[in-house]
């Protein structure tokens, strides 16, 4: 294994691959990406694959809009031989309480100010968009036709291949076991395969981001919580948009293959790095989906899996150039939406590292916001 690099990126998920690609495109040489398992083998590969612009904070709206506009042309931009399978069939957000409807209306004002084509829809219209929706339990819905979902494996692969063509080296399986500093500056990365000397390290380690920060004595307020998903047997296409509800606690999409992929959160999920599956999830998910979208209840479950939400107190990522350790950067704490912000992460981090004028202002997402109490709380998360 090589023993020095100009830049070492820890994590071979969407964030690491996107940062690597953006840096290489700007001419940075000797970039190495270290991945513990395999490319897309962590939370990116376990995610629900949805991308939406229907958020409650201006920043999330702008980030996701940027990402979605990127995904629309990603096959061409990244010169990908495959297909990222971006299907813009919309997100139908459904609500079963008046309080949530009020939140949707507030969110839509923010979204419209950002140029996002979202709107409230009547229950009749919701049913025309998703005919098998049980509207009898609902109060209303919101819809944005430009939202959608795409294949996380192919998308990460597209970034990975583009980065490799630009000379980025990917090493896996390689586990980072320590970081060294010298005079307040990063000096190297200690791995299970040897030491790499470098003055620049980017923490894009997803579920393991806190452990990486701990290696240089930086304390970050993130926890890694298990979130579970299941997939059913495939049937012919019957549901175009992602259906999501914060109150009912569910999101469900029908993949291009015909299977339904669905997930929900749970307060009792373990926070010790486990990505096992539980029967409680299976049973709660089945109850929720059967009540909300009854025909889907007839399908067999093929498989369950889980990934880690790297969660911050305000459910927003941390984009940070460390003030304490020179040459240490982090893009962590995506709180369950790291995949959809992947394109933004690459741009924000590469500009931060190279000291360029930011195209997207992510200054409110520095680590210091927690100490100053300047959090930007996102109300709309499953």
């Amino acid at each position, binding site marked *: 294994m090589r023993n020095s690099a100009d830049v070492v990126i820890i994590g071979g998920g969407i964030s690491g691959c996107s940062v690597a690609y953006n840096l290489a495109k700007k001419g940075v040489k000797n970039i190495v990406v270290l991945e513990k398992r395999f490319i897309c083998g962590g939370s990116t590969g376990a995610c629900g694959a949805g991308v939406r612009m229907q958020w409650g904070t201006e920043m999330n709206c702008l980030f996701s809009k940027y990402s979605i506009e990127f995904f629309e042309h990603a096959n061409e931009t990244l010169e990908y031989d495959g297909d990222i399978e971006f299907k813009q069939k919309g997100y139908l957000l459904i609500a079963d309480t008046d309080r949530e409807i009020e939140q949707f209306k507030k969110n839509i004002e923010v979204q419209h100010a950002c140029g996002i084509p979202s709107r409230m829809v009547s229950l009749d219209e919701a049913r025309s968009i998703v005919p*098998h929706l049980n509207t009898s339990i609902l109060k209303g819905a919101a819809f944005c036709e430009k939202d959608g979902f795409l294949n996380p494996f192919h998308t990460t692969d597209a970034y990975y291949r583009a980065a490799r063509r630009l000379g980025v080296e990917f090493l896996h399986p390689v586990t980072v076991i320590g970081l060294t500093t010298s005079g307040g500056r990063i000096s190297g990365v200690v791995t299970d395969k040897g030491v790499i000397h470098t003055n620049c390290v980017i923490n894009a380690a997803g579920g393991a981001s806190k452990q990486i920060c701990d290696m240089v004595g930086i304390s970050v307020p993130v926890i890694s919580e298990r979130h579970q998903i299941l997939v059913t047997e*495939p*049937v*012919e296409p*019957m549901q175009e948009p992602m259906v999501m509800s914060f109150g009912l606690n569910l999101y469900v999409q029908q993949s291009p293959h015909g299977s339904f992929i669905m997930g929900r959160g749970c307060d009792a999920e373990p926070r010790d790095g486990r990505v096992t599956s539980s029967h409680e999830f299976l049973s709660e998910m089945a109850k929720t989906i059967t009540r909300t979208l009854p*025909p*889907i209840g*007839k*399908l067999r479950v093929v498989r369950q899996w889980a990934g880690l939400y790297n969660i911050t107190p305000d459910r927003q990522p941390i984009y940070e150039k460390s003030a304490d350790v020179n040459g240490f950067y982090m893009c962590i704490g995506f709180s369950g939406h790291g995949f959809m912000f992947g394109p933004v992460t690459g741009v924000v981090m590469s500009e931060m590292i190279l000291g360029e004028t930011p195209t997207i202002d992510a200054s409110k997402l520095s680590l210091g916001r927690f100490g100053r109490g300047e959090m930007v709380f996102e109300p709309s998360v499953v």
Partner: protein
Amino acid sequence: MRIENHPVLDFKRGKQISFIFNGKAIDAFEGETIQAALHAAGVRVLGHSLTLHRPRGFYCAIGNCSSCMMVVDGVPNVRTCVTPVREGMVVELQEGKGIIE
């Protein structure tokens, strides 16, 4: 063709019944699977593969391989090799991934 004598298993044949396959009446015995009856009746093509549309025949016979999925009484994706046949059942060949309502 039905297995009459098996070195290990003992087939207790129930009374003769009839069900509908693609609009045609087929004889069967109570206690056997839909596939056992279809095989005995000479049905060899159970569906077509989803991508290349090649014919699929009786394969695993234990509910794993997806080769024998049919529409039974309106329900798609029924694994007919492990589903007992019943009097008057309506079984249809399934093309594609199945439609649920």
